């Protein structure tokens, strides 16, 4: 058969599939060793020499500049898991790669790709149903303990493992404090309301949770007070510098006196603005841009704390939390300038404190919502970056548990339970999909397998034992409570045993499991469907 002539290369059929899957598996092998509590970290050095040390799948993959288009799909997969769930970014990639590998084997054995995909979809549907019907546990029955345990489980694979008790407590407290109810009456737990500040020095155990907001900034002048109770905060988003005329305006003066007057006028404009802010009753002024030194004088005289160059994002949050309005211009509708007192936000106490080598400004008792700030301490910057990522993951996990209200047992428990269930389910299918469902069930076992392998335990033996337990649980009478409880069996990796992970507090949000399986299957199907790859050559440079 003749080839169609195009500017570029074209590959077809099995070649493409094998090539795609090779790339994907290579990618998953990179992150494989970082899965689970005994997983190891990666050190990544980028092109400008910046070092990142991490255990987080999404971060690793983001830093690798993958070029293969199929591998890119997987990188995006971990990215979306990070955005939607926040945790489980490594396992989702490993699962997708395993599904692809097994799918490809089936196709090589002359099972049509479409049957494989149909089987995978069916298996996914059954799995999701099974998780919600029999594997998940409502958190109402577990209480606050559940939150702490879920946070601890997510930390267990990270650098925070040793101090997980301490940080789990911290994270849960912070998360519960930021609860808000939106206009539809739903409780929301915005992770973004928790501000994480990193300061190196001391040990990670010295990290603290501050009930309020903190920014890394200092008073603009030494003469200002260091603390202020009953603060009235003005958030200003314009320059408090000498007024400069806009482009296209030329200043032409004939005699030197006029020059002086113009200079004076420039300063006067700024002075009036400062005075108007002070006159409104503000005693803390946050400015996102510069404040001239001469202008500071007026603030010092009035005993006002003024801070310049506050990052815009911080300014916005402080404004939201204190009820202040960010003012971009003093102009009012009459063509004059004024600062309206209703733009001021209130806060019980604002004070400056030194933490480590840096000055921090704390805002406590904000009037609108309760913002939380976690100040992380640690030996060095790499450590702090990694702690921040881990903490972020844990916060997301807590949020999911709080919002979805159901958890599942961790440590490979869900995967094995599903695998056993799907194995049985496959045998009830009299079509080609049977094989694909069976492979899906096999593929799920990759998670406990890698977990055990990373912990240097006998994966085969542990897995066999785990399967026996789950089989017993699923075959047993619903009245036999002892056997029913076996369905929460999972791996314990320090000693290499099988135990009830629910009672031992190794739990994950059910929603995160469901989503990661959905994403992984979708990605696998997207790649399996491709049977033709056309690469167009880059246009010739003239």
């Amino acid at each position, binding site marked *: 058969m003749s080839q169609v002539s195009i500017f570029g290369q074209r590959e077809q059929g099995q070649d493409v599939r094998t090539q795609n899957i090779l790339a994907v598996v290579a990618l998953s092998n990179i992150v494989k060793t970082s899965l689970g509590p005994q997983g190891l970290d990666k050190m990544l050095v980028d092109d400008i020499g910046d070092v990142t040390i991490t255990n987080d799948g999404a971060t690793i993959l983001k830093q690798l500049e993958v070029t293969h288009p199929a591998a*890119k799909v997987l990188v995006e997969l971990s990215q*979306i898991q990070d955005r939607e769930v926040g945790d489980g970014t490594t396992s989702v990639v490993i699962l997708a790669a395993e599904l692809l590998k097994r799918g490809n084997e089936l196709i090589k054995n002359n099972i049509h790709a479409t049957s494989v995909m149909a089987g995978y979809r069916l298996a996914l549907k059954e799995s999701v149903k099974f998780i919600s019907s029999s594997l998940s546990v409502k958190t109402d029955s577990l209480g606050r303990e559940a939150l702490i345990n879920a946070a601890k489980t997510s930390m267990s694979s990270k650098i925070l493992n040793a101090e997980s008790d301490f940080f789990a407590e911290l994270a849960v407290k912070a998360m519960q404090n930021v609860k808000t109810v939106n206009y539809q009456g739903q409780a929301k737990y915005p992770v973004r309301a928790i501000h994480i500040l990193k300061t190196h020095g001391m040990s990670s155990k010295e990290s603290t949770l501050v009930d309020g907001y903190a920014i890394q900034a200092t008073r603009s002048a030494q003469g200002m007070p260091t603390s202020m109770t009953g603060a009235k905060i003005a958030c200003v988003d314009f320059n408090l510098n000498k007024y400069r005329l806009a482009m296209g305006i030329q200043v*032409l003066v004939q005699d030197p006196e006029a020059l002086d007057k113009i200079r004076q006028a420039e300063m006067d404009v700024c002075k009036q603005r400062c005075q108007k802010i002070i006159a409104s009753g503000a005693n803390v002024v946050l400015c996102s841009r510069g404040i001239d030194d001469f202008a500071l004088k007026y603030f010092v005289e009035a005993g006002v704390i003024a801070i310049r160059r506050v990052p815009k994002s911080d300014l916005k949050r402080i404004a939201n939390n204190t009820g202040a309005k960010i003012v971009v211009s003093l102009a009012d509708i009459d063509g004059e300038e004024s600062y309206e007192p209703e733009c001021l936000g209130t806060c019980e106490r604002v004070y400056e404190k030194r933490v480590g080598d840096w000055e921090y400004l704390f805002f406590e008792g904000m009037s609108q919502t309760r913002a939380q700030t976690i100040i992380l301490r640690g030996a060095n910057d790499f450590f702090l970056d990694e702690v921040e990522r881990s903490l972020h993951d844990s916060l997301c996990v807590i949020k999911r548990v709080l919002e979805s209200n159901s958890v599942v047992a961790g440590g490979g428990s869900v995967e094995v339970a599903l695998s056993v269930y799907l194995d049985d389910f496959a045998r009830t299918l009299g079509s080609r999909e049977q094989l694909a469902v069976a492979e899906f069930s096999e593929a799920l076992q990759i998670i406990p397998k890698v977990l055990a392998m990373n912990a240097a335990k006998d994966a085969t033996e542990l897995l066999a034992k785990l399967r026996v337990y789950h089989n017993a649980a699923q075959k047993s009478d619903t009245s036999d409570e002892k056997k029913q409880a076996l369905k929460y069996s999972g791996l314990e990796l320090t000693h290499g045993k099988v135990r009830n992970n629910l009672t031992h507090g190794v739990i994950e949000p059910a929603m995160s499991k469901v989503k990661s399986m959905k994403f992984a299957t979708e990605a696998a199907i997207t790649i399996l469907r491709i049977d033709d790859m056309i690469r167009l050559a880059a246009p010739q440079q003239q």
Partner: protein
Amino acid sequence: MSISAAHTRQGATMDNEKSKDIRSTNIVAARAVADVVRTSLGPRGMDKMIQDQRGKVLITNDGATILKQMEVIHPTAKMLVEISKAQDIEAGDGTTSVVVIAGALLKACQELMNKGIHPTAISDGFDVALTKAKEIITGMGQPVDLNDRDILIQNCITCLSSKVVSQNSDILAPMAVDAVMRIIDKTDTNVDLRNIKVSMKLGGTVDDSELIDGLVFTNNKVSHFAGGPSRIQDAKVGLIQFCLSAPKTDLENNVVVHDYTAMDRILKEEKKYIVAIVKKIVATGCNVLLIQKSILRDSVNDMALHFLAKKNIMVIKDIEREEVDFICKTVNAVPVPHIDQFTKEKLGTAKLVEEVSAGSQNKIVKVTGCPEQNKRVSILVRGSNQLVLEEAERSLHDALCVVRALVKHRFLVPGGAAVEMEVSQKLQAHSREIFGTDSYCVRHYGECLELIPYTLAENAGLDPITFVTELRNHHIQGSKFDGLNIRKNKIMNMLEDNVVQPSLVSISALTLATECVRMILKIDDIVMTR
């Protein structure tokens, strides 16, 4: 003709010999194109991954998109790309089948030419066959009632079944049908798909896609710069095309300041200028302000935003020029080119304008509850990654086109290659009733249509010969609605199983393919000129 080309022609061997060669290279090149898309035909067809010159990756199943992206070189191959595009415009669906049919017809041509039949005669013969084929399809058509929502949805599901998003067809198909039904009158014979605005936003899954009775802005955020509102009920929407910022002097001109009092004046003048505009806007009662993008200067400056926020007016800026028309027609607004023309009558209305979050960081603006009679809707497509998102958008476009095809021509025919098989059978029977070369041509034309059921079965991993022969048998015995049901892997009455497609798709595919083949046949020389 250039001199050098004329020269080579003289130097070439006998003209007759050459034109034969040209024809066969043309046919080979065109058939190669058909082979490329053949594997993506039908519900079990595969996807293509295409990496373009800049390294951007595209995954698609849509014939027209594949061919458009492929950049084929051969001029005849380009003709096939063109008919796929034409089918996309005319019917929206069946872009793969049209190319596959053309490829099959070309193969038939080769055989006929080998028999020594003159290309012109073949071309005429195909014309006879086409006329007959159209008659047959029309005869098979079942009338459709546009009020029957279910049957329209079934049509869309058939169209979507071959796409990546096929498992989401229960959401996308009703959406496409409802969208089209909203914008037409029952008596309309055509649909202007421009009245449906399809926007894409990354994040969520395809299941989160929605039909919005009004407008949706995915790229223009509400300006929160000065803390303006993000939710407005009973909105009065104004769209302005002028800038809300201080006018600039021309490049060569300067404002000259001689003393400090003038400085004060400059400060005040700018304020006055903007205050005057804002006051006029407020006076009209407008509470949602859309500002067209301007390349000359900032379309809106800080101070204006500050005033508007104070007056509780929502500001959405950077509206693209092309969007203005759609927006205005949706909310019944009139674009305002200058502040002096901004009056109450120019405002549009909407029940609710709201900024909602889509995903963790993204926000979109929804405008709902627009006046009923405007017949404009928007569809927001979501997807977990860029590739899926774009494919979902293309698939949705196909589904919309299917509904449009049904509005244009209110007949439907069974899917699953039932039409092709029936036409093939009837044409072969017809060929025995006529004489001369036409008879040969019509028979071959009929035979080659069997390639469609053959490919469908092949792509589904079934044994094509068994299925095609069985299907042929069914049709000879008179069950003319029987087709290949890929989901159940058996031959059955497609009308009963609700696998249906608009008859316009089939007719247009056959017409376009035949015309293109006839054109290729008539070429007997290629002359390259510079």
